[in-house]
Each structure stands twice: as structure tokens, then as C-alpha cells.
């Protein structure tokens, strides 16, 4: 479902209480997208399947997707920010990434 009229149609809201929107298409660096009424310029290209914050999140706050917790903000996250390994951590086991790989760099 599209989250609301003032949100880019490429952003998908999976459950009403979620803190993130999911990209249904790639968004290029420098594009400006509407996130629930806020115009956000995306600093780096974001691939299909990545997440953008729908609300401001304080450090330590639970992040919800599918209406369920997927971890906690490891630092403050602003509405419109890319949400990934740099600012979200698991409540179970830490996420391992191969050396040098940056979130969002692969199409």
C-alpha cells in the first residue's frame, strides 16, 4: 500500500505502525523524494528493498517493520534517513558484512 498521498509512490508502507518505508524501486543519488510530507534529498543511491525512516527515531528506540521489531536504532535517525547497518542493530546476533561492503552500494 502507498503510505499516503504526500509520499513518493516508490516507497512502500508494510504495516501501519512501522517506522520504515521500503523502496520498491531504486532511487538515485541527489533525487528528492517526498516522505510523508517531508522533502528529502537522498545523498547516495539506494537499491530496491532498502529502507527509509518514516519518523524520527532516538538512539535505542525499537525499529518496526511488518508491524514487528527488527532491532534498535544504534544512533539517532532522522525522518528520511537511510536505515541500515550504520544506524540499526539486532537485538539478537550482530550483523556481519564482508570487508568494505557499504550498505546500498550493490544494485
Amino acid at each position, binding site marked *: 500500500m502507498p503510505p499516503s498521498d504526500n509520499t513518493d509512490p516508490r516507497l*512502500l508502507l*508494510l504495516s501501519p505502525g512501522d517506522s520504515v518505508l*521500503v*523502496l*520498491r*524501486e*531504486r532511487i538515485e543519488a541527489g533525487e528528492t523524494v517526498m516522505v510523508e510530507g517531508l522533502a528529502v534529498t537522498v545523498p547516495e543511491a539506494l*537499491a*530496491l*528493498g*532498502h*529502507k527509509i525512516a518514516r519518523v524520527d527515531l532516538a538512539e535505542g528506540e525499537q525499529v518496526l*517493520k*511488518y508491524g*514487528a*521489531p*527488527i*532491532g534498535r536504532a544504534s544512533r539517532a535517525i532522522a525522518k528520511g534517513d537511510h*536505515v*541500515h*547497518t550504520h544506524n*540499526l*542493530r*539486532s*537485538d*539478537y*546476533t*550482530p*550483523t*556481519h*558484512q*564482508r570487508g568494505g*561492503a557499504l*550498505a*546500498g*552500494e*550493490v*544494485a
Partner: protein
Amino acid sequence: MMRGYLRSDGRKGIRNLIAVAYLVECAHHVARRIAEADPERAHVIGFPGCFPNPYAQKMMERLCTHPNVGAVVLVSLGCESFDRAALERVVRASDRPLRVVVIQGEGGTRSSIAAGRAFVEEQGPLLEAAETVPMAVSDLVVGTVCGGSDGTSGITGNPAAGIAFDRLVAEGAACIFEETGELIGCEGIMEARAATPALGTEIRASVEKAARYYAALGYGSFAAGNADGGLTTIEEKSLGAYMKSGQSRISGLIKPGDIPPKGGLYLMDVVPDGEVRFGFPNISDNAEIVEMMASGALCTLFVTGRGSVVGSALAPVVKIAANPVMYARMEEDMDVNAGRILTGGATLAEVGEEIYRTVIGLAEGRRTKSEELGHQEFILTYKSFEPIGPACLPV
């Protein structure tokens, strides 16, 4: 019209294959050369280790008597620890034609290959001409796995597979979902779906065991490519993976090699019992497919976002592309394009129906892309399990 091969235990297969099973890595080459005599029909499976392992023994017994298997070649070096005699007894008791090739007794590599090939060449036409019987959806056992997951898997392919599962279960099939290590965070929701409260408690405990096991190993069941594809944490990946299970009541909790006693939805506990031993529970996706086959899965639904190309020995794998960009790039390996859900080309319900039809088609003579491409991956490693408790399969 669905048709299958009726086996002596009453189960029906959708393929009539020859399992060429090596009982130690030292016999692998000979097994491979034997299977080359009939690459479509003769599939290589095996266990590489020379130390005995009751889990591997049970898995090999189940796989050599899998409903899709019509004849068996056992390839032994001769001095390995694997209990060949016990496996032979199980295969003979199932009435399947069997040839045992012991390399040290046959006279070496060449004579062993020749002996095995003679059997494969003799069995091929017989298996081809074998009678089939009508098959119903309630004869089906279907597994599901996801691999190479990304941020699209949990939105398109997995929930569509869940819809197909719901329909299969409603029509009496046994459906198996698994990887408790990839259901971490979903224990509460699954507990509530259990057929009985005692089963719910067992399900919760199985996920807690998985979380402990992976914590001890220091890694979650989470690959670097998952993060590249937009997944951040194991619980996020889990929620996506969980969607494959659909909405049905969970009828039971089984372990690898346990055969579902009747139709319904079953969770497979794949994480070993006891202290951490032998390394990671399932070192790659095919290990999970093999375990579901050992529990009788005639085919497996495989949802992938990043783009896995694997198939399997013995049982067809239906590849469901979750990501439309990947589908456009890798269509030659994909049976179903669930990415259409994101691009507006189809609804979840429509893709779920397509997956259901694809499964039925496998029993009507159609083949998957991975079968056409000759994929026959197989992997089996060391594990140890305790038997399931009485609450795991409520009557």
C-alpha cells in the same frame, strides 16, 4: 492429471530416479562417473565423512528410499566407517533394485565404474517404462526455503509462497518450512499458531535453541549479500522468511528425516541439539533442501531475491524470483516472477496461485528450470539430534 510412482511404503514419487550414493568422499569420483551414464536419471548423493554419524546414517537411509527414487547404487570405498550394511538392509526392505559397488572389492576405479554403469544402463529403461498411478494433492509433501534473500523476499516471493502453502495445506498436502535460525524473533507469533499449547512451547524452545546456537558461533544466519540487498538484522530477515509459512495452523515440529504423519503445516527444527559441535547447522542452502527431502519433500519452493541458481539432486526445486530487477537479469534460472507484485504486474494472490499451479505441474510431467539446466546440488555434513518430544506431533 497428476500421476506418481507408488512405492512399497505407500508414498508416491513425482520422479523415478536412480540415487547413486557415495558413502565416503573417497568414493565420490567413482559415483560421479557412474551417474554420467544417465545424467538425467542418475543423481549423485552422498556423505563425505569417514567418521560415523547417526544423523548422516538416517539421512542417507531416508534419501535412498525417497519416493522420487526408483533404484539405488551404493558406492563404498570399503574401509569407511559408514554402516553400509544397515543402509543396504533399509534399501532392500523397500523393494528397490540395488547394486552395491565396493571399490576395494571390485578391483579399483575402472571396474567399479563399469559395474555401476551396467546397473544404471539396465535400470534406466525399466524406470522409464514403470507404471504410474493417479496422485492427489494430499499425496504431496512440499518444502520451502529462501536463499540469497534481500529486501524484496519478504514482500513478494515469501508471502506468495505462503499463499501457495495455505492452499496446498487446505487440500491435504504436508508442507514443511524451516530454518529456526532464520525465524529468530518470530517465536511468539509461531507459538500462537501451534495446534496445541504444548506444541507452541516446543516451537518457542526450538527458536530459542537456534538463537543460543548461533550466538555461540558468533554469526547469525545472515550473509553479506543479505545486507547488500537491504536487510539489516537477523530479525528483519526472519520476519521475511516467516512469510513463507502462510497462515495455516502449525500441525507439528519435526527434525530432519522425520516424515510428517499426515497433511498439514510443519516446522522443521534444523539446529542440532546439545552443545555446539561440528560447526554451522546448515552451511549453505542445499543442506536445508536435503533435510526436507529426507522428510519426504517431493519438491521444494525456493524464494530468492539476490538470485540463487541452485536446484537439487532427487527432488525438483521451483525457483521464485522475489526481485523484479534480478528476474530481468536471471530469467533463465527462474520459474516464477514474484517481482511482478512490486512492479504492479500481478497481485500476491495471483502469484500464489501460479506457484500452486507450478507445483501441481511437476506431477503432470512438467520440469523446472533448474532440472532443465541439469542442477543436481547436494550437501550433507555432520550433525547430532535428539528425537522429538511427544508434544511435537499432537494427534
